[in-house]
Each structure stands twice: as C-alpha cells, then as structure tokens.
C-alpha cells in the first residue's frame, strides 16, 4: 500500500525526519507513537502534502505511484485520507455540499460519473450513523461551532464518505473524552477491511485499547527506533518514553 523509504524532511530549514522507513500493507493497522517533537505530525503533514514541509531525501510510494510528485488533492483522489489533529472550521461552507464536491472531483479524476443526489444523500445517512453524527450536524457549516468530539467524529464521517485506501489519523484521540473516543474508534474499526489500511498516530496508548494495531512503531528523533505489537504500546504507557531515549542513545 505505502512504502516510506529513508525519508528526511525539513521545516523552515530544521530537519525533523531523519531517515524514516515504514511499510504498510493492505489490511493492516499501524500505530506510530512517540514523545513530543519526535516528528509524528511532520509525518502526517508530508503524507498529506503540506507545502511548508520539504522532503530532502528518500521516497514515498503509494499504490505504485510516487506520492511526493502528487498535489494534495491528487493524493486524496489516489485514496489517501488525513484525519486532522485540529480540524478547520469553515464558516459558510456546508459540510455535505463540500463533501459532494470532494466525491465528485475524485470521481472525475478517475473518469467516473458524478454521484446522483439520491445516492449521495443515502450515503450521508448511512455514514453519519457510523459515528453517531446527527444528520443536522452533517449539513451544518464545516466544523463551525462543533465541540472537540464533534469535530473528530466529523473527520471520521468524512473518512467514511470518501472511503480511502489509506487513512492517516493524526492524534485523533487528543482532546476527546472517553465516550467520544469510543465512538471515533468504533467508526474507524467498522471501516476496516482487507483492502484498506490505517496509520494511527498517537501520543497515548489509550486509543489503542479501542483501535487494536497490528504493529506499534516508536518514532523518536525523526526515525522509527522500535517496532513491536500492541504490547509495546502498553509497555510505553507503563514506562514512558525515557527508556527508549536511553536505549537509542546507547545504541
């Protein structure tokens, strides 16, 4: 699905990623954990194509294509989805209207016909249930006046509507109470299939009680320094990140 090879990335001249390697196959859930400043959000940003970040070395291949050559919207058309850590409020732009444009531009890029109004509304009804998002909320202006939990549920709702191959969840658990967390995780789990994959970026182990990863990677100082299964997350929860730092420095 995606192969990230020896990626180095800068922001404002400062190197954040220092040779990151990661391969994710269809059907897998990978968790990326790490202390603040390790480069977690930078990873999400370069995957989505934020222009402030510069990839100086390495390659990213997504479904056989050179991801770094694609514009942000082309990455979306190819099946990449980023759930934002801080979803943006966009007054005056209706959530469903913009999603319809998004779906149709994606279809257009693939040479498909636009979705009919009827099919689209049926899809809205079906997918909003997954994250228990009130249909009124779905029609309101994008994230405007939404609570923290509603914003994150809206991210997963959008993900469900767009049906991506690879979803990158950037600290989706931040700012969520336990009920919202459960709903968000339930949404993610219900979208899981053997054809798609997710990268779950998180600081805390908590989310991984609900979204069970196949692999847990520890990102530290711009590189993946340790990989394990879900037990690694529990170990990190218990011991913190210091032992990783020490281990890395010794190594």
């Amino acid at each position, binding site marked *: 699905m995606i192969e990230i090879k020896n990626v180095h990335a800068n922001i404002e001249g400062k190197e954040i990623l220092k040779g990151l390697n990661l391969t994710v196959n269809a059907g897998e859930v990978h968790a990326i954990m790490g202390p603040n400043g390790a480069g977690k959000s930078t990873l999400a940003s370069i995957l*989505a*194509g*934020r222009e402030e970040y510069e990839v100086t070395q390495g390659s990213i291949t997504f479904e056989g294509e050179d991801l770094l050559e694609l*514009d*942000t*919207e082309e*990455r*979306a*058309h190819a099946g990449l*989805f*980023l759930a*934002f850590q801080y*979803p*943006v409020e*966009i*007054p*005056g*732009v209706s959530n469903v209207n*913009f*999603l319809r*444009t*998004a*779906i149709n*531009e*994606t279809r257009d*890029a693939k040479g498909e016909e636009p979705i009919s109004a009827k099919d689209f509304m049926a899809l809205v009804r079906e997918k909003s249930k997954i994250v228990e998002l009130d249909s009124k909320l779905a029609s309101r*202006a*994008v994230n405007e006046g939404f609570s923290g939990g509603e914003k994150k549920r809206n991210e997963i709702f*959008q993900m469900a509507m*767009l049906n991506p191959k690879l979803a990158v969840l950037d600290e989706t658990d931040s700012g969520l109470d336990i009920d919202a967390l459960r709903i968000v995780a339930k949404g993610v789990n219900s979208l899981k299939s053997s054809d798609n994959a997710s990268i779950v970026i998180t600081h805390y182990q908590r989310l991984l009680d609900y979204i069970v990863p196949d692999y847990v990677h520890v990102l530290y100082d711009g590189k993946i320094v340790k990989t394990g299964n879900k037990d690694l997350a529990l170990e990190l929860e218990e011991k913190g990140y210091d032992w990783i730092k020490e281990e890395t420095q010794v190594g």
Partner: protein
Amino acid sequence: MNEVITQTKFDILRKRLSPTLLPISKVSKEKAEDLLATSDFPTRKNEAWKYTNVNGLNKLLLNGESSDLTKPNSITKSAEKVYIINGQVSKDQSDVSGIKTLWGELPELHTEDSFDALNLLYCTAGIELTFEETENKTVELVFENTTNSAVFPRIFIQCNKGAKGTVILNFQGAEKNASFINVSTYVDVEENANLSIHKIQKNGPETYDLQREYVNQAANSVFTINTFPLSGRMTRNDLVINVNGSNCETFMNGAYTLKGKSHCDNHTTVDHKVAHCYSKELYKGVIDDRATNVFNGKVFVRKDAQKINAFQSNANILLSETGSVNSKPELEIYADDVKCSHGSTTGQLDDEAVFYLRSRGLSEKSAKELLVKAFLGEVLEEVENEEVSSYVEEQIEKHFSA
C-alpha cells in the same frame, strides 16, 4: 494682450458630450453650469476622492463602437420592466402606470455635486417610479450598454406613504464596452413605506460608472439598498441616506468581485438625524490581480438622535499580492445614548481551510471558489429577492470560471 485660457478636465469632457434633450429649468441649468465652471475633476487632495482617479474619463472614446451583450439581460421574470438602451429609454416599453419617462420639466438640481450637475446637463433619460399606498410591486430598469456611449440617466423613486416597492437597477455592459455611465438617483421613502433597491453593476471591462443616490427616509419607514459592483474598469458609488424620521430601519449591503485592473469605490453615508432608528451596513468583496477597492462608510448620529443602533462592517479578501484595499469607517456621534459599532478587515483566504478542502479532494481552484462563495454568501443571505441573489451567485461563479 494675451489672455491665459485654462481649460478644465470638465471642459475637455463636455466637448464630447451632447447636451440633454430633456427639458430643464433655467435656474437648474445656470446652477449646473456655475458648478461645472468653478470645479474640475477631483484630485487626491480631495479627501472623498483620495484613492479614486477619474482622469481616465477623458481617454474614453465614446465613439459608438459596439460589441455584443450576452442575453437575456433582465434578472426578473414577472417584474415590470423599462429598457434603457445605450442611455435612451426604449419607447415601446415605458407606457406603464407609475413609470414616467416623458417630462414637462425635470426636477430642480438640489446638490452641489459636479457629477450630478454634469448628469443633469447631459441627461439621456429621466425616469420616475412611483409606488402607491396599496401597491407591492417590483420594477426592473434594465440598462443595456452595447455601444461606447455616454449613459446619463436621472432616476426618481417615490415610495408613497405605506407603499411597498422593489426596484432593480440592472446595468449590463457588452463584452468590450467602454462607456461612461453617470447616474443620479433621488429616492423618497415616505412614512410607513418600505422600499428595496437592488443595484447590479455588470459593466463592460473598460466602462466608467459613477453613481450617486440621495435617499430621504420619513418616520417608520424601511429602506434597503443592495449594491453589487461585479465588473467594469471603474465603479464609484456615492450613497447618501438621510434618516429624517424616527423608528426607521436602514439596510445597506454590498458584495463586489474585482479582478484585472478594476477599481471600485463605495462611499456611503447614513445620517441619523432623529432618535429611535436602526441601521446596518455590510459590504464584502474579493479583490484579485491588480484590482483596487475603496470603502468609506460614514455614520452620523446627530445631537438629539438618541437610542440609535448603527452597525457597519466591511470585509475584504485579497486573492493576489498585487491587489489593494483602502477601507475607512467613520463614525461621528454627537448623542450619548446610542449603540454603534464598526469593523473593517482585509486579509487573505485562510490557507489552512484551503489545505483542508484540498486534502479531501477539491482542486485548489474549487477550494478557493467555495471559500469565496461562503464569504460573500453572508451578504447574499441579506438579499430577500431570490431572483437577484441567485443571479449574483451565478455571476460570482462565472467570475471564477472566466
């Protein structure tokens, strides 16, 4: 003996204009002549024209060259219509009650404005609309400008006691039109009357359009004016509203889309002379390329005009690095028990919002268009006439697809 003859820019301009064929009184004619003899084009030193330079008027050829207009041009289906083609009232359209285009004598010149004086001396059409007490009707004046000419209509709108009226002033310029449009509109809103004006300025790319509206509101009246400068080389609107009676409501909305070398200047004045009134003003626009925008909004609250609520807001989005905006709100308040506010903002589109939309699959162009439509949508929500708001919305879409 040598006599120094100085020729003003008005003198140069006037040589190329044909004096009006409409009857004007001797007094008005003399007053207008005097005004023009003692004035010249405004310059930067004139505070009200600091950012708007009209010297280009003398470069307009006004040579009658024509280009095509995309049809149909009327915005409404059922409204009574008057067509004014290249400044002249189209005769077979004007025989409707409440619409007067034939004059024994045009009303006197009341102002000291040199462009108003010019409008009178070279007036190409005089149109009076009257709304009677029992009526609730809509009249659309369609100005089709296909040849490069002087279009100088003088419009009088009389909304009688208790009447409800809607007027659409629809200026449509041809594809390559380079006309000089100069409009004076006098509006009288009587007690308990409710008048709405929707003004669309969809002018040709080289057209200069200088307009002024003088509005008087009597007690318990409601007046709304929505202004949409959508295209043209230069657009200047001077809107002056005198709120002379108590318990009035006044709404001023504007949305503008500027690109290329367009220049747009909206000067508005609302003068609260008496107590217990409400006014609300919202002007928003987007500025692309090398276009320039000026907004100047004055609100006066006179000494005894207590319990006034007056709100004013102007917001601009610059879509290019070469566009510019000069926005100046001016509140002058002489009463002490009032609630007034004003705000002015100029910024770029929110990059984070553009990125968010693109990350969902929208092209950069669609993302920006969606954000601009949402930004201007706040103004369109204020427009009660759906034919007008959907027309303007369509024009905003076209503005982006062009």
